[in-house]
């Protein structure tokens, strides 16, 4: 029998926004063991659990829609996966859904974020024809127009909701939007990941 693929949707809230992607990976490994999830291990000399995360979340952003694909060596119901994992997870990281995936992570095109703040927001920089930021790259800083990567934005109470490119080649970190808006103290919440129409939630 082939290992069953399972997609897990979970939250990463509050103080857990400071857990880096690498640390999340390590944490999940221990979580799988203590939740007794029969996760499939790689073959070879040094077997390790196979885990694939959808969109690494940058430090300082919360999320209600993190996605992780694993494979199970033994069949489990969705409810079993959810309840066993949640018992082994802190309240800030809870599994919302678990299902057999029918799509690929490469189908993800956009992510939707809420950026909230107590500071007044002037959205006009986003309305300009080009939105140029200094982007950190391996070879130093360089100018980059992020306008094409901003699919949409609209005001919400105490902030702004925006849909940003989230493909492996064009991924816009929401921190840049906060920078463009000149915010100092703010929160970022990733709410949904979307397919190429920019509206339908990826599942």
């Amino acid at each position, binding site marked *: 029998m082939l290992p069953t693929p399972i997609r897990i949707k979970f939250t990463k809230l*509050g103080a*857990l926004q400071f857990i880096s992607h690498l640390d*999340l990976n*390590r944490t999940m490994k*221990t979580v799988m063991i203590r939740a007794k999830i029969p996760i499939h291990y790689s073959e070879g000399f040094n077997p390790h659990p196979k885990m694939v995360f959808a969109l690494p979340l940058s430090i*300082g952003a919360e999320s209600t829609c993190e996605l992780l694909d694993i494979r199970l060596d033994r069949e489990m119901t969705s409810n079993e996966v959810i309840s066993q994992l949640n018992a082994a997870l802190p309240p800030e990281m809870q599994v919302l859904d678990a299902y057999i995936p029918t799509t690929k992570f490469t189908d993800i095109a956009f992510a939707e974020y809420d950026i909230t703040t107590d500071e007044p927001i002037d959205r006009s920089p986003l309305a300009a024809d080009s939105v140029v930021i200094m982007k950190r790259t391996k070879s130093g800083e360089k100018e980059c127009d992020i306008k094409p990567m901003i699919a949409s934005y609209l005001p919400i109470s105490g902030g702004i909701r925006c849909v940003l490119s989230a493909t492996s080649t064009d991924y816009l970190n929401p921190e840049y939007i906060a920078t463009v808006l000149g915010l100092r103290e703010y929160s970022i919440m990733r709410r949904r990941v979307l397919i190429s129409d920019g509206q339908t939630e990826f599942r």
Partner: protein
Amino acid sequence: MPEWNNMDNKMKAILKSVLKPGRYTGGEYGQIIKDKSKIKARFAFCFPDTYEIGMSNLGIRILYGVLNREDDIWCERVYAPWVDMEDKMRENGIKLWAHESGDPVCDFDIVGFTLQYELCYTNVLNMLELSGIPLFSSERQENDPIIVGGGPCAYNAEPIADYFDVFSIGEGEEALVEMTKLYISMKESGEYSRKEFLHRVAMIPGFYVPSLYTVEYNGDGTVRSYTPVYDDIPKRVVKRIIRDMDTSFFPSKLVMPYIETVHDRIVLEVYRGCIRGCRFCQAGMIFRPVREKTPEILNEQAKCLYDSTGFDEISLSSLSISDYSELTKLTDLLLEWTNESKVSLSLPSLRIDSFTKELMEKISTVRTGGLTFAPEAGTQRLRDAINKNVCEDDLMRACRTAFEAGKTSVKLYFMDGLPTETYEDIEGIAALAKRVDHEFYAVPGRVKGKAPMITISVACFVPKPFTAFQWEGQDTLEELVAKQDHLRDCVRGEKHIRYNWHEAKVSRIEAVFARGNRRLSKALYEAHKLGLKFDGWDEFFDYDKWLEAFRLADVDPAFYANRDFGLDEVLPWDIIDCGVTKEFFRRERDKAYCSETTPNCREHCSGCGANKLGGERTCCPHR
């Protein structure tokens, strides 16, 4: 940390601006949260170094569990903030807080510090200051917390005695609970006052209240006497031990860090104490008598921790793991389930004379990782003088086994500056490394086409209280450096030998405080005022500032580090009874000077005295 939703924006912004904010946020899976209204005593357990190091400490894991097992006590964790966070705290007037509740440490009833190494003392002072707690015990008011210290350095706590209200000497599992219960009962009955509490604590076995002992000094600066100020407190404080390790508390759950810590693994404490009697080693003496756990119980504890944590590595911990009398049984029991669960076993260190092919095959970190052996000295004469009880043939046999199994590199630990050491002994280190190199090529089954790498790592000898070498002065800085240079010359041009050495200046400061008395507290205060902290970290250690601190305090560091203490001198740590007698140390010292060895405890009892403390599953004869 307070819960994220209750945190103010300023703190949120600070967390976003510092390195590794995961150090400060708390909220780990497995942390213990209690209802404050039902708590009668709050205990802040402080580790005076970073979160990553503190979270790996077995002692804290045990004591956190044992204190929180009590319904009316809530024990929380506190770590030293890294310097970037400290700056933000000072800038914004934020006091040091406890991890679980986020409440300031100054609001706790009891604040405990674990003292693992002398170089953390400046961090202790800094953490007290960041908490807004008066540094000196004598300056604390009725409402300030009781400051308690424990751990290996508490065996000679004199240099920091002025900063602590009380020290817990020896194993704290039972003692700390007793002390906290006393606090609760005195608070409830209305008898509590700082003074009365400390007097009563001093009557509990294993507690040393430094302010209740007057120290007098001779004209030459040595200690003349310790005098208790009350008749009903002991003249010497006998350390506490856990009698029965099998029934003693061992955590079934751990707080799981999100960020990577030094040791992300299960640490299984196999036994306490050590049957060896290395004459430089303090741990081998202060943790006596040997008390073993039974393999079945260890296996159950390991399984339970695996289920509750999800860690996939189990480290078997003790001073010399291969001396555990049931190691084969234990590893067999563990391997019954660990292989299948993809859990690996690791050992912290192995004695050269116990390293076998069988052990290597069982222990995955030995199988896949590098190998480290500790001959400690370069010649048989010196190895005999320090009572290491291994010979060159043992080392060659161990290395051959490793090379036959496909290893190409070994790491060898040594010390320089050992008592009776000559340059011949230094040259012996290089000669030994070269012989290991030759041995590699003599092994028919070695890995072909790859050169061996022999790393020699040399630490400076630091004389420690409660060892046979407690009276010996450390080599001067110049001597230590000259020896290091000489060894470098001896291995120059050797392509297969890599040479690492410890910073001698660090070892010197360690020596000053290891054998210090109360007159050093002023130097420590000056060091703190000069901004010294994290002395164990290369990037912060500042020898010149330390010399400045000694000068300001009118303290001669050589008096403590380099002077040979008189055999009849009252030693600063004579106030403590660690079980092993001074007479035994004296005998061992004399034998060292004759390069005469002492058999290990299992071969023959040498009458160290620790058996008076009792204990189950020891190898000691009953007294």
